[in-house]
């Protein structure tokens, strides 16, 4: 169970990493496509938190 949680945490970090990268690439190609609806700072904050949680769990 603990192994699974550790796995989920690391996968969630990868997920947010890809999501941030996709969002930034989309925003560069089509300006305002994301920023008009959603502040990317929130997403980056969640991504950082997920990374920190992963580090602490290790």
């Amino acid at each position: 169970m603990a192994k699974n949680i550790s796995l989920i945490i690391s996968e969630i970090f990868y997920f947010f990493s890809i999501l941030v990268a996709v969002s930034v690439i989309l925003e560069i190609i089509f300006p305002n496509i994301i920023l008009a609806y959603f502040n990317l700072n929130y997403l980056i904050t969640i991504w950082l938190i997920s990374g920190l949680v992963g580090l602490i769990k290790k």
Partner: protein
Amino acid sequence: MFKSFLTKWPFLYKLRLILALIILIFIIVCLYFKIVPFGQITYHKSWPQFLGSGKGFIYNFTPGERISSTDRQLPRIIGDPIYFSLFTPRTFDQAKVTIKYREKLTDQTPIIELGLLMDKLVWRYNLQPLENQIIDRLRSNWLVRGGDGLVLLQSNSNYDNLTEFEGDLAKGFLQDCPGGPTYCLAVYNYQPDYTYLLPDQSRGKPLTINNPLRGAHQFYIYLKDEPLRLDFEFVDLNQDREADPITVTLYSGQQNIANQFLEDENPNPTSGDIEEKYLSLEKKELPQGVYKVEVRASNDIVIRKIFSSVHHLSFINKLWPVSTVGNLTLFTDSNHLQIKAMSPASLQTITFADQDYTINETYQQFSFQTTSQAATKMIKFSQDDLILENAGVFSWNEDNLFNPNFKKVDRFFYPDENIKYIIAEYNSPLEENGFKVASASFNLRGAYREKGKYSFIISIPGLRAEDGETDYLEIKEIKIELTGRTLWQKIFH
């Protein structure tokens, strides 16, 4: 397949598949809102705003000094005009803008209009009415015919319906109107089907205007079955380092019938490198009537001289003389005049309809009103480099002046005994929970769009931030419904 996914796939694969699907859905949703495949979308913004997540599509009001608000208040417009912009991820064909607002305006500011920027070079907006309190007040006293959209107001019951009225107007007369339609009809946001005929049917002498004018100008000319020739001499001041193309367009009604274009052969000039340019427009066999000429140029261009083969020539709404020659005289048909001095040397006392008015600040718009009953009013000024504006026409000679337009129900309109009819394309705002709701529709084809943004204006003529009055307009919500081509229409047509 699904059973095998649940039982046989390792946990890691399942998790990765689910997260990958979420990313894929995210990308599809983003592209959906970028492409808007069904061609319809609505954007809105309401106030007061709390924790906003995205930048939104409707950008805040500018300039800041004409807005008074705190975070928890509705934005309060205290000066005219106010601008806002709309970002769209693609182009659209039509926009219906609905504004929810409440106002505390005075009798001096009875009109609220919303406009869409069509031409940035000459700052031309397509203005549509949101509220006209003069017409709303007259609705309760005058007889109203028509309803949704086009409405006819008459002081006496002469017409039973709009069709009868428009039929008579097209023939050039109206009941109870001996002076002709231009004397007893006022319009608002509507151009009736009417052919203006100049009372003086004699051909005048050709006209040469030697008073230099700066920037874009428009004028009416009246042709009496004669060939038209217009010669322009321009000076490109090259005060900025931009290219300054010049276009002269001849219109009959709304129709463009001739066009002359002068490209700037020196698109990156040295500052102050003055150039002379010439342009002619010739057209034969034009029927008798009113034509409009538009000279479209930046403020770097001075129209040094205009030669016109026709005698009757009136500048429309605006004139910016820059001759540097003293003691000039102009004529206008309007009782109102707005003047802005463009240099300290232009500060002076001007005479308008035999009354003196002082202009004591540069770049500040001064408004002057006269009660003169004369058909034309004289304007005298000792120095030019002044921008003169009103809702009427201007000319350098009294006998050149004519105005083919009907009286407009603007903020200076007063329904005197001559005005018997008002025709307007206008719907009064609706009341909703203490707010007023008004809409305006715009054709976005041909509208100016820069960096994905359309530019709008909210105009309340006469509203001034610096006058110390407590009049304002508060905006609660802006909703913009956009329609355009669907993805399938874009691909297959």
